[in-house]
């Protein structure tokens, strides 16, 4: 729709630009958008609305995802969602359901259970009501998963970690290094499997896996030592001198803040503490955040080309928030339309204005920068073959 030519031409200046590093959307914007959709999904069991949400997420992913490895995760999440629906359905059919129903679909042979297992039923009557209820419920969960999958395939996980506050930077690096390790491990396993073949041994079977395991772990260890050496030699972990007063303040703020959070949470959950719970929790959070911020002073790091929140990022994040807000409002005004009746069975109706609100979630497909066409054939030799040729 953004590539339309013809009468839409006068609006060319408004069309989404091609994505470069400068105008790339911050990972946080995509996550806010996706979490907004997920929140909306959690407020309804109307299959039509859920379907609409999945459609919106899928369309945006199709329009704006890149060729990066993480971008392929969307399909996996869709499959996971379908699996969840299936599992929910099977459990409902086999274990029965508290939903009363009159439309008998079939009767499974019921497993007689001893007296102490009262309340548990295996097999027995399967009614249309309980099946529909299970499908609605499963669909809600599946939609949540698919929204998360959409964020996963649109946002670069490494860039998300980069937006961590300075004091948590080290934890972020550890995760990034671990993530780049996974493909190396896969490449190692492939290489060793082929090496087994070269020695005339079968490459399948449990024995082969065990045999390969040890060298793979050895290789991973050696590589982590090499990466650690490289990071050390490139200045990882350099610290700035910090006056003792600041250091102590940091420690007090962080510890005190965490303590406040603990006590505050306890107060909130305990029966009578609601009065002091919330203020204490908030004060604790504030102190902990201040501690983190102050702790960041110890690190001398700077950030190279951090993500910028421009108008497009706000629009993307805002569209997700708008969908969530509209759906929460709709759940308050007209709960019946968002939760179509199961007993008695009724056909779900598409509530008009919540549906229109969900369509706001399509905004990113128009405003987010378009990923550049791949400059090289899509399947550049995967890490495995690259390392075969070059290492």
């Amino acid at each position, binding site marked *: 729709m953004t590539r339309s030519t013809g009468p839409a031409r006068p609006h060319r200046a408004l069309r989404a630009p091609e994505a470069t*590093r400068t105008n790339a959307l911050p990972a946080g914007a995509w996550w806010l958008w996706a979490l907004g959709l997920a929140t909306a999904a959690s407020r309804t069991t109307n299959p039509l609305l859920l379907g609409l949400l999945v459609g919106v997420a899928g369309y945006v992913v199709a329009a704006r995802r890149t060729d*990066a*490895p993480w971008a392929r995760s969307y399909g996996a999440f869709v499959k996971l969602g379908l699996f969840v629906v299936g599992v929910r359905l099977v459990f409902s059919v086999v274990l029965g359901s508290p939903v009363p129903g009159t439309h008998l679909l079939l009767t499974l042979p019921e497993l007689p259970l001893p007296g102490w297992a009262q309340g548990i039923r295996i097999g027995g009557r399967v009614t249309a009501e309980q099946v529909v209820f299970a499908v609605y419920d499963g669909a809600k969960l599946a939609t949540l998963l698919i929204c998360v999958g959409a964020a996963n395939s649109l946002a670069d996980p*490494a860039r998300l970690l980069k937006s961590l506050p300075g004091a948590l930077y080290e934890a972020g*690096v550890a995760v*990034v*290094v671990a*993530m*780049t390790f996974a*493909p*190396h491990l896969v490449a190692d396993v492939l*290489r*060793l499997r*082929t*090496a*087994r*073949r*070269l*020695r*005339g*041994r*079968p*490459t399948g079977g449990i024995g082969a896996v065990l*045999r390969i395991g*040890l*060298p793979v772990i050895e290789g991973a260890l050696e*590589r982590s030592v*090499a*990466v*650690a*050496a*490289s*990071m*050390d*030699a*490139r*200045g*990882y*972990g*350099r610290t700035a001198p910090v006056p003792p007063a600041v250091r102590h303040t940091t420690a007090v703020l962080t510890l005190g803040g965490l303590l406040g959070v603990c006590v505050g949470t306890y107060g909130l959950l305990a029966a009578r503490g609601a009065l002091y719970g919330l203020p204490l929790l908030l004060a604790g959070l504030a102190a902990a955040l201040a501690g983190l911020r102050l702790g960041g002073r110890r690190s*001398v*790091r*700077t*950030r*190279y*080309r951090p993500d910028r929140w421009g108008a497009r990022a706000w629009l993307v994040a805002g569209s997700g928030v708008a969908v969530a807000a509209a759906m929460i409002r709709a759940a308050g005004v007209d709960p019946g339309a968002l939760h179509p009746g199961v007993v008695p069975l009724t056909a779900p109706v598409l509530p008009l204005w919540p549906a229109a609100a969900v369509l706001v979630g399509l905004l990113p497909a128009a405003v987010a920068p378009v990923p550049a066409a791949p400059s*090289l*054939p*899509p*399947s*550049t*030799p*995967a890490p495995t*073959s*690259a*390392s*075969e*040729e*070059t*290492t």
Partner: protein
Amino acid sequence: MIRFEQVSVQYEGAARRTLSGVDLTVPEGELVLVVGPSGVGKSTLLNAVSGLVPHFTGGLLTGRVTVDGRDTRTHRPRELADLVGTVGQDPLSHFVTDTVEDELAYGMESLGLAPDVMRRRVEETLDLLGLAGLRDRPISTLSGGQQQRVAIGSVLTPHPKVLVLDEPTSALDPAAAEDVLAVLQRLVHDLGTTVLMAEHRLERVVQYADQVLLLPSPGAAPVMGTPADVMALSPVRPPVVALGRLAGWEPLPLSVRDARRRAGDLRERLAGTEPPAREPSAGALAPLPAPAAARPGLLGRLFGRRPAAAEPVPADGVVARTEGLGVRRGRVEALRGVTLSVAPGEIVALMGRNGAGKSTLLTALVGMVEPATGSVLVGGLQPSRTPPRTMVRRVGLVPQEPRDLLYAETVAAECAAADADAGVPAGRCRALAGELLPGVPDGIHPRDLSEGQRLALALAVVLTAQPPLLLLDEPTRGLDYAAKARLVGVLRRLAAEGRAVVLATHDVELAAELAHRVVILADGEVVADGPTRQVVVSSPAFAPQTAKILAPQGWLTVGQVRDALEVPA
């Protein structure tokens, strides 16, 4: 800029010192090349400059190493990071981030440079190293030469005064190596960076060096001097120097250009003689080992698979043949219409740039990839359809990383496993290993062997099944000249026994020394296939130094010239 004062290093558990009594000064803005046989402590010397020895590796360092006045005893590697940039042997284990641009910025981020400075330097470095087109690419999709350039760029951005490089060109094809070296020269000339570099492939780098630091043997005192002086007494030397010594040129030439200018008289002396033709010793095919009929596995027996009968050797005396072979990896056509045949006793060198399909062709010959089009026949069998146990008696491949082939804890256990794999009487592999690497104790762990010894062990393991076709992928990587000479001897003997050898290599000198035939691949297609001399002499990238010096005469190696000069005398 760099000062070593009476430096000795001894690693924990090592019987003797790795370095002892090193006393030297590297002035600012010089390119110093560290040479010496394997295992003399070149890497240790380099890592002592960046402080990784002893802070990271452990061991005991006595004496003092100072870099620009900073003592490495009191400064940890991270505190030298703004001063020394280090790139190790394997660029892949150097990378911390996943894209080129982030990698270039990583070091500066750690040092806390201002964002606008970082941005400017990244752009400058992208241009300096010719990486601008790759800035957003994931590092794992780059070729070896590109990765090496990214690794160098990533340590350049903090503007270090000293650059330390361990074998920067060993894994690269000739063209990529020249790219990297051109960059280094630019750094030295334009930015005044001090470069300390270790490299086995002297023929590529010695001409760029201002000084050469020779570590003659483990623990011996190092010699430092101008390249010409040091090369005169070095046990390791590139062909151009060897030829200069043979012809008695004074001072020794270091580059092909210098040598060509002086080579007029040598060319005249050689004018009357023809370079010897190199022919495979045909017909000397060793009898195929009676295949101890591969027993089918349990599943095979269940499904009534019959033991593979001993296949006849193909009548036309060809060990392996590919016909219009095409291989695809994903959507990339790694090989296209490759037609090739290998005769017994023949040594074929596969050459071409990184990613041209050399490794893929070798893996297709052992049956690890299925041909998409065309056919592969090795010893009359289709490798990808034949069980591995049968295939090992037809063809053996020594992979790029020989260590992949070795699993066992000790050399002896490795050999016993190889005998079992190949179904031959116990002891054959150990005997072979004894021939190929004499003096290696049984109990040693394969990881503790040197590169050359490990290659020899892998070779012994592969040869245990006595395959008539032997494939080697980049065998000379990390080998010094002595280990290379041993390898050449072994491969010649194998060929003389009637085995066919196919090696994929970037090492033009090795191909010139050894190959009967050279096949050049580009983008998965065969672009040249013929006798070594014809293919190699005319090519600027693939000609060995001797051929370049003595062109248009077709001499390939110093050995040939020496023989020719001695005959009339």
